[in-house]
């Protein structure tokens, strides 16, 4: 009897697993796999809008982009946005989460306020920032002028000057990712078993000592996941730049997804557009695999 049952299960399993996975595989193959393959093909051709075929040009599109100053700016900006915004997010979220796990009066309401940037659709909140950074009616400038911190007749143009526009974009990304990272870090804190707390107490680890040697190391795997999401959200997002600056002024806030969109879709140069978008993929894939491996390794030890 036990032997037969086991064999039944095995039979079932061999049949069941593929049957359960198949729909997902089909969806992904049709909606991502096939278009991706076509785009990879396009990146090696000189195809333009209107047709999905062209002459094979080898790595020409990639080489052209690599020597294009706009591409270089876009590449650099994508990395800068991602690193700076996520650095701010991780530090802020790690800090905030330690206090937000506590129980206190008014927590529900404060948490609601903190969650708002994450809950709001990104395009909508970015329109909010478009207004906050407006050239004429910026509330930031009004405040700065009335604090006599900037010149009334020459206020900063947050979206019109290259460095300030970069800062504005990073601000929006950091602002909108902070709540999400905080939530994930709270999850990390919540998953630390009570026994660890007790053990730390017995060993005399309190305050900062406990924070650095007990809590933070245990928080690390889940913090890695938070950073991973943060990196993916910032590096692949186009809405923020599209709405705030469209890559301007003078392409100074250009980033890869935006540049790929403008080149491949708006200007109709399919080949180069696909090549630009593909530059990011191996980098992100590598980062993802490394971070997932790291998260798992830390979790095991």
């Amino acid at each position, binding site marked *: 009897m036990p032997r037969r049952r086991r064999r039944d*299960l095995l039979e*079932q399993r061999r049949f069941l*697993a593929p049957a*359960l*996975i198949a*729909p*997902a595989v089909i*969806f*992904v193959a049709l*909606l991502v796999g096939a*278009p991706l393959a076509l*785009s990879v093909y396009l990146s090696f051709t000189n195809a333009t809008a209107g047709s999905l075929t062209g002459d094979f040009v080898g790595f020409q599109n990639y080489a052209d982009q690599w020597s294009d100053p706009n591409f270089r700016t876009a590449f650099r900006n994508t990395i800068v946005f991602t690193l700076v915004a996520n650095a701010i997010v991780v530090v*802020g979220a790690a800090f905030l989460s330690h*206090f*937000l796990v*506590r129980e*206190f009066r008014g927590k*529900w309401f*404060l948490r609601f*306020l*903190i*969650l*708002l940037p994450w*809950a*709001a*659709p*990104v*395009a*909508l*909140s970015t*329109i*909010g920032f478009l*207004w*906050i950074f407006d050239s004429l*009616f910026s*509330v930031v400038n009004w405040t700065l002028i009335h604090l006599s911190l900037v010149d009334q007749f020459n206020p900063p143009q947050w979206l019109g000057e290259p460095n300030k526009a970069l800062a504005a974009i990073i601000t929006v990304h950091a*602002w909108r990712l902070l709540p999400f990272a905080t*939530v994930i870090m*709270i*999850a990390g804190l*919540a*998953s630390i*078993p009570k026994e660890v707390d007790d053990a730390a107490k017995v060993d005399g680890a309190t305050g900062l000592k406990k924070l650095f040697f007990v809590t933070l190391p245990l928080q690390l795997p889940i913090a890695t996941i938070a950073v991973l999401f943060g990196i*993916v959200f910032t590096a692949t997002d*186009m*809405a923020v730049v599209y*709405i705030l600056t469209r890559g301007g002024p003078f392409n100074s806030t250009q980033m890869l997804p935006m540049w*790929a*969109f403008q080149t*491949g*879709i708006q200007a109709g140069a399919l080949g180069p*557009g*696909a090549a*630009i*978008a*593909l530059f*990011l*993929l191996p980098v*992100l894939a590598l980062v993802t*695999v490394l971070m997932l491996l790291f998260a798992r390794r830390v979790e095991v030890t």
Partner: protein
Amino acid sequence: MPLRRRDKLITYLVVGPFAIVLAFPFYWMLQTSLKSELDLYNTENNPFGWGEGSPTLDNYRFLFSDTQYVHWLLNTVLVGLVVVAITLAVALPAGYALARLSGRWGQSMGVGLFLVYLVPPTLLFLPLSRVVAELGLQDRLASLILVYPGFTIPFATWLLMGFFKSIPRELEDAALVDGASRLRTLVWIVFPISLPGILTVIIFTFSLCVNEFVYAIAFITHSDSKVVSTGIYTELIRGDVFYWGALMAATLIPSIPLALLYNTFLDRFIAGFTGGAFR
């Protein structure tokens, strides 16, 4: 455990400023949305106060009676719900199978799924727009419902795989030994325990759909079928004319219920993320 007085004070001193900074843009949307044109565009006025004709509900009136705003909101919810349903139907079985029924290759396939999620829309955009055109789906919500599962399914499957792994195997084995079939076990034992995880996936999927912007702006140009992000962006900004009051009202309205929803389910979400009811 109640906090000591000093700890309490420190907590408020940290959480309070964070809340103020993070919520400020929404406060600003609210104040702007209640202002009259005259007040809003007078640089002499204190923007934090109320000037001539403010506060007023004119912007809200304009938004609800002179634009398709309500339509856009409903479209957004509709697309979100249908995509959530499709995603769950496909990702639940796949996530379970990857976590339980497949050996080592399940693990690598899980990571592979996450990698699929990294493929930027700009890459898939051209081929997909061709497909949408061939199927005659331009300007229809169906185009978004067709395309969105491409990024929600990999993501949801990856998340669900993690949740299912955290469920103790013994529970299922007990049911199996009692003579229940795998599918029965799945529906009656596994899914109910995984509720926090499933809820997390629902919220995540819905929010991915609501946040999507690139496909929505490219596939749909017909006012009737726009979703909220693109409708506001394309119709309340006309060339150089920004209807700021109405824009701010329009951005504020969907944000509030979404944040309430997130806040209500946050504890479950956290439970889901740390691996289900059993740890």
